[in-house]
């Protein structure tokens, strides 16, 4: 986040007062990190959704992104590394009216927690998952991860990363997500719109936000300031809602395709199915 936004957060009266936890600001995010502005738009999107704040729960795993839940003044859960999704399922099915939002990092959701992501999408769990993809493990000092692109320099890929990264929207779409969008942190307006749509959706909705991490990603990849990463995004981003998700992998040189790729209506959710099962099993003859 930018320095003056940072000041705004610390000042006495903030438009989001009451939605950030008292006494938790200043936050831990580095200058130039996009996590601050992503937090802001997430709060705005939740706030404007009209959902009773009591019925909102935010769940994170471990990582820089994972710290977001703890700043929000909703029921918030900072779980273990990789595990926010199954925790969110437990929260979600115990109250069909609860809106459960998972926000976590690329390593958390797609390396250690990858299986939970694909299984939750398959089940159509009634949760919104936001991944802030900063192409690396920020919190632990910049190691390579499952979204690190080929040739990217990180502490554990000192010669440039060798491995093909995940194409997250394609993964989500293939596994059954009912809503899939990707935007860059530069485009907060669209990020917010995607958050709002994802939150309004019932079923497994997924938003990938390409974040800026100047500290542990930018520094090693000639993008040392947050601004530079955002400029890089500005130059490379192409909006295409109709893109085939198979064609939107990220690499060093190609354009970054963003947009809303999937938006499916009326697919029964895990919660719908569980409630229907209760009705059916109770209608059967008692033993």
């Amino acid at each position, binding site marked *: 986040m930018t320095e003056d936004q940072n000041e705004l957060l610390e000042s006495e009266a903030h438009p989001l007062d009451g939605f950030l936890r008292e006494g938790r600001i200043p936050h831990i995010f580095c200058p130039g990190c996009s996590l601050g502005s992503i937090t802001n738009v997430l709060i705005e999107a939740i706030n404007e959704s009209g959902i009773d704040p009591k019925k909102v729960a935010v769940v994170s795993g471990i990582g820089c992104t994972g710290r977001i839940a703890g700043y929000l003044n909703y029921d918030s859960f900072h779980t273990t590394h990789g595990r926010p999704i*199954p925790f969110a399922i437990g929260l979600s099915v115990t109250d069909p009216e609860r809106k459960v939002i998972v926000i976590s990092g690329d390593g958390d959701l797609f390396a250690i927690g990858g299986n939970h992501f694909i299984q939750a999408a398959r089940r159509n769990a009634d949760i919104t998952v936001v991944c802030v993809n900063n192409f690396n493990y920020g919190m632990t000092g910049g190691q390579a991860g499952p979204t690190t692109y080929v040739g990217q320099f990180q502490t554990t890929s000192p010669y440039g990363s060798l491995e093909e990264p995940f194409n997250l929207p394609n993964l989500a779409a293939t596994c059954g997500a009912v809503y899939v969008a990707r935007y860059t942190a530069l485009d907060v307006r669209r990020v917010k719109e995607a958050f709002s749509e994802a939150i309004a959706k019932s079923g497994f909705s997924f938003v990938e936000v390409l974040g800026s991490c100047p500290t542990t990603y930018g520094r090693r990849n000639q993008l040392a300031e947050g601004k530079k990463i955002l400029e890089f995004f500005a130059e490379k981003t192409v909006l295409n809602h109709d893109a085939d998700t198979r064609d939107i992998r990220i690499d060093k040189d190609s354009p970054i395709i963003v947009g809303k790729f999937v938006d499916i209506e009326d697919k029964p959710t895990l919660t719908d199915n569980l409630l229907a099962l209760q009705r059916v099993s109770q209608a059967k003859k008692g033993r």
Partner: protein
Amino acid sequence: MSKQKQKFLEVSTGEHFTTGNHAAAEGALAVGCKFFGGYPITPSSEIAEHMALRLPQLGGNFVQFEDEIASIIGILGASWGGVKSMTATSGPGYSLMVENIGFGMMTETPCIIINVQRGGPSTGLPTLVGQQDIMQTKWGSHGDFEPIVLCPSSVQECFELAIEAFNYAEKYRLPVTLLMDETLGHMSERLIIPDASKIGKVERKKPKDSPEEHLPYKADDDLIPPMAVAGEGYRVMVTGLTHDERGYPNLNVETQDKLVRRINDKIRLNKKDIIRVEEYLLDDAEIAIIAFGSVARAAKGSVNRAREKGIKVGLLRLITIWPFPDERIEALAEKVKKIYVPEINYGQITREVERCVHGKTEVKGIFKLGGSIHNPQEILKEIEGDA
């Protein structure tokens, strides 16, 4: 029974002939469990299967997760969602769960885990009995915490201790392990389920103050904080990081000391309430057997046979394994010449017993390494051989 509106009941009152696995599941339902998250594993799968059948009828939910890590964290989520929740597994699954059992300890989240033990290490003996997870239930997760672990010896007790496991979980706010074994899980015997009015249910303490004043991790004098859950307007904040009374991360020595001391002491100071043992013919005993789980059944047989032969043997059966009944065993050591510890492992409880007797009496372990249970004659022979 008269025709009631509700066809399905939480408490299946009546006389049954059933297995330990089904009995434990019925115990959980009787005390109000409404969420089961699990992953199939022998010899525990019948618990999941029974819950899959019964929970929807009772307005509860069963989710078969993708693995045991998802299962344990899923039931912790359900507990914060406000319902009693559980999982069931065996050694390999319990191994996968331990990180998040620690998360449950740190965040003080009530739930129960049933471990139906089989022979280990590793995949070991999937279909055969073991008692080798004693130390794992104590030390499995990193950091300091005081677990509560209960160990039934009969089908009836699988039912009763499933209820007690939930009651302790709710009262002391922690994940409690019900440590069964394959023999118990799969054997059938008589189970009497009492009337619903006779089932003692404990519910987690709720806050009495307003959300504005509430401090979610401020404990009462009993060291246990009242628990607001999601959706009640308290805007709970839960983290596995070291946290202060507000639930906020606070990474300093003082906060750590205060928190970790409290989550241990809330159990240590209540050992009297938690520790249960059964004493059988110990009053005049010169020799004691300490046993637990299905092995305790054989040990009782050994005591009876020894008594017939005029040898004064008694049994101390451990029902609570953790916290360990140190004082009770120390007192026993003053009275008897020798203590035998038959167990299906290579000395896990024997070592604890040795620790407690302080050299005041001789301790001898009788070990089986998994796959079979001692028979009464075998234990008796050991005793006679030494006499």
